[in-house]
């Protein structure tokens, strides 16, 4: 079927609309069935994906507003393929682990709607379409946090919404300006990203546009100064909310960098490597320290995901195949790992209705299965080799080492500080004697929780041991991206940096 | 030369009159100053040899409008000194002074726009009133009629509004009585 992508995008939304008709007690089964079908479709997409060519595949083109060059233009390549897969997989697993009873129908419908926007963002090749899905993804998230969240939920959801919205407004202005520049350069206006990839912009407009896009993406990632919405959003969101928020929504920012900033403003991106590297360095070390000081389990994982996003950003701005491929892989691995960690915190929250670490102690003796899965996911989060966490982190740091050795040395401290706060969390809640009598009769993981966690654990170990099927298409598309950037770059140092990487690649 | 002297005398006099209008405590003084000011303005009109305009100014403005004010004044107990709670003199003078200076700068700096050419050039031979009459009844006929209707409407409204309970006189009654009546 040639229009698989539109099917992938709109199937969950339509199914969601139909969900209103479904009876209340069978809505959960309905939700799981829909997301399962969606996941199978995305698997079909992966099997039929031709890994040899790095360009766009399954392209669909339908002019919407021709005179303004806005058209329904979908396509997927090595970079976005696995992010689509990640979003469908995480939504399926998240839905299975759902324990919320209060007004479940609306939750499942908003989740399906959210899934549509997630898949839409990663496959949209038209800037306006991308922007639409980008903004739409905030709406269901607002409801999920706003309605089913903790006590401070209204403040958290509004802050999340407005903060990201403000950033993306600036980004949208940037998009319009690029379309205008495209118009002045070629006479016809177009919002298609592939056309923009061929557009060569003068250096200082590139810098300004890069900054515009940067603010939009930086708030979404979230990068250092703009990250304060995340602890609130995670603190107040229900488990399913923070699973999807952490696993997929944060990746839209870094995906944006790779899809927009790098190819369209190559010289600006290369000129901005050091400032962004310093920013992500602060991000890594600072949030790791803050995570160390947290008392609430979920906040530790929330801050840890900011720290990992810092490594992703560093990988993206390494400007060589290893670095960018590493950062894409780290996006997927962080999605799986932080999704699993949030689910685990959700499980213990359902049992004890508190997330404070000092409430727990010696859980390992009471809940051994829970402790082992948490241990495996902890090791994946810390980036132990043969788990999914290591490959991405190793490649990103390796890639960035070429650009700036000293910053990589400091960024490498992420593995130390990461180990510090994760092990502190594990020791405080799992090791030690069973002091709190409320923990004595906690039941271990039941079937539902296990069915949602086991696939994540298997993927975490499988992609750690054999990442080749995922790395191969990413590698192809990233090489194309870098060749494109090298052809387009104007400034001398951009040209040299990219040529030097290519020459080293050919030499091998 | 005479023209300059006339212009300056008239100018000083009008400004003086209007300052009195604005600054005086007593309503009567300000009203009469206003009437005098209007007469001098009509003097300007004659200077600018817009004679018909000057005549109309005197008749309509000083005559009718001042009369209206006089009548209106009778209604209000202007005998009481007008208590002025002028909030911030400083703000008022600052603003008006500033705008005055700005206007002067605009007018003093030579804004001569060459493009303006006369729509209805004054012909030397025939008098001012006659030429106005021609223009008024050819080009501006519609606005003239509309103005007429407007004046009619204004007249009727003035009568209707002011005639309610024309019989008792407000000024002679004491305030409490009026209030009582109002409450009734």
């Amino acid at each position: 079927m040639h229009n698989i992508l539109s099917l992938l995008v709109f199937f969950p939304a339509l199914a969601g609309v139909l969900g209103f008709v479904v009876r209340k007690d069978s809505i959960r089964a309905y939700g799981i069935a829909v997301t399962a079908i969606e996941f199978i479709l995305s698997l079909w997409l992966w099997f039929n994906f031709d890994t040899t060519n790095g360009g766009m595949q399954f392209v669909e083109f339908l002019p919407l507003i021709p005179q303004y060059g806005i058209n329904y233009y979908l396509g997927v390549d090595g970079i976005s393929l696995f992010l689509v897969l990640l979003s469908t997989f995480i939504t399926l697993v998240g839905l299975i682990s759902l324990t919320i009873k209060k007004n479940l129908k609306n939750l499942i419908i908003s989740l399906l709607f959210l899934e549509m926007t997630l898949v839409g963002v990663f496959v949209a090749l038209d800037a306006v379409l991308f922007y639409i899905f980008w903004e739409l993804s905030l709406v269901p998230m607002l409801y999920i946090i706003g309605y089913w969240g903790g006590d401070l939920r209204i403040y958290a959801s509004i802050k999340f919404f407005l903060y990201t919205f403000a950033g993306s407004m600036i980004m949208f202005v940037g998009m319009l300006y690029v379309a205008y520049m495209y118009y002045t350069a070629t006479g016809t206006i177009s919002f298609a990203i592939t056309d923009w990839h061929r557009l060569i912009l003068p250096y200082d407009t590139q810098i300004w546009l890069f900054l515009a896009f940067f603010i939009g993406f930086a708030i979404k990632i979230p990068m250092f100064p703009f990250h304060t919405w995340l602890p609130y959003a995670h603190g107040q969101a229900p488990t399913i909310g923070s699973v999807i928020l952490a696993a997929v929504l944060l990746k839209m920012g870094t995906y944006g960098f790779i899809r927009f900033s790098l190819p369209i403003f190559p010289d600006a991106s290369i000129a901005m490597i050091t400032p962004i590297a310093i920013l992500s360095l602060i991000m890594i070390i600072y949030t790791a320290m803050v995570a160390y000081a947290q008392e609430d389990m979920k906040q530790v994982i929330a801050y840890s995901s900011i720290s990992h996003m810092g490594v992703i950003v560093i990988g993206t701005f390494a400007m060589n195949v290893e670095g960018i491929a590493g950062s894409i892989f780290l996006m997927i691995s962080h999605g799986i790992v932080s999704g699993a960690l949030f689910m685990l915190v959700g499980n213990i929250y359902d049992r004890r209705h508190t997330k404070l670490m000092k409430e727990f102690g010696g859980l390992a003796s009471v809940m051994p299965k829970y402790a082992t899965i948490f241990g495996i996911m902890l090791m994946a989060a810390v980036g132990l080799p043969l788990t999914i966490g290591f490959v991405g982190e190793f490649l990103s740091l390796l890639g960035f080492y070429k650009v700036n050795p000293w910053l990589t040395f400091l960024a490498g401290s992420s593995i130390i500080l990461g180990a510090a706060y994760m092990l502190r969390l594990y020791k405080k809640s799992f090791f030690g004697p069973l002091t709190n009598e409320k923990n004595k009769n906690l039941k271990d993981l039941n079937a539902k929780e296990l069915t949602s966690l086991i696939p994540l654990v298997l993927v975490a170990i499988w992609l750690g041991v054999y990442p080749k099927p995922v790395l191969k298409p990413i590698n192809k598309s990233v090489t194309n991206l870098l060749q494109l950037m090298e052809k387009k770059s104007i400034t001398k140092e951009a040209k040299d940096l990219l040529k030097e990487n290519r020459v080293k690649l050919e030499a091998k | 030369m005479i023209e300059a002297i006339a212009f300056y005398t008239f100018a000083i006099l009008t400004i003086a009159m209007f300052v009195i209008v604005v600054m005086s405590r007593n309503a009567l003084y300000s009203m009469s100053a206003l009437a005098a000011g209007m007469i001098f303005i009509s003097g300007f009109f004659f200077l600018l040899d817009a004679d018909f305009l000057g005549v109309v100014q005197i008749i309509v403005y000083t005559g009718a409008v001042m009369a209206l004010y006089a009548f209106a004044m009778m209604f209000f107990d202007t005998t009481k000194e007008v208590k002025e709670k002028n909030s911030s003199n400083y703000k008022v003078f600052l603003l008006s002074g500033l705008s005055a200076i700005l206007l002067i700068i605009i007018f003093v700096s030579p804004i001569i726009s060459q493009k303006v050419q006369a729509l209805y050039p004054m012909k030397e031979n025939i008098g001012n009133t006659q030429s106005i009459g021609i223009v008024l009844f050819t080009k501006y006929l519609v606005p003239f009629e509309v103005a007429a209707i407007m004046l009619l409407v204004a007249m009727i409204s003035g009568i209707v509004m002011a005639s309610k309970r024309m019989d008792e006189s407000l000024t002679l009654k004491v305030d409490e009585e009026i209030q009582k009546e109002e409450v009734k």
Partner: protein
Amino acid sequence: MITLTHYLVLSAILFCIGLVGVLRRKNLLMLFFSTEILLNAVNVGFAAISKYYMDLTGQMFAFFIIAIAASEVAVGLGLLIIWYKRVGSIDLDTMQSMNG
């Protein structure tokens, strides 16, 4: 000798005096007087321009302004009288009912 700018400067000064009147006065009647001054100031300007540009439109406009001024005074005073009957004073601060 007297040029157009003299007249324009004169009308500017008169206009500003009118403005002072408008701003300072708390008594509505006095406010009417000031508006009269404003209108007259503008009339002077119009007349002057019409003379120096040898064009009658200025005077025509002056006529219409006088007409409007007259009707404005009529209606204004009518309203003022009703207001005075209702409230008993024409002080500006009493009219605060419309504040936001």
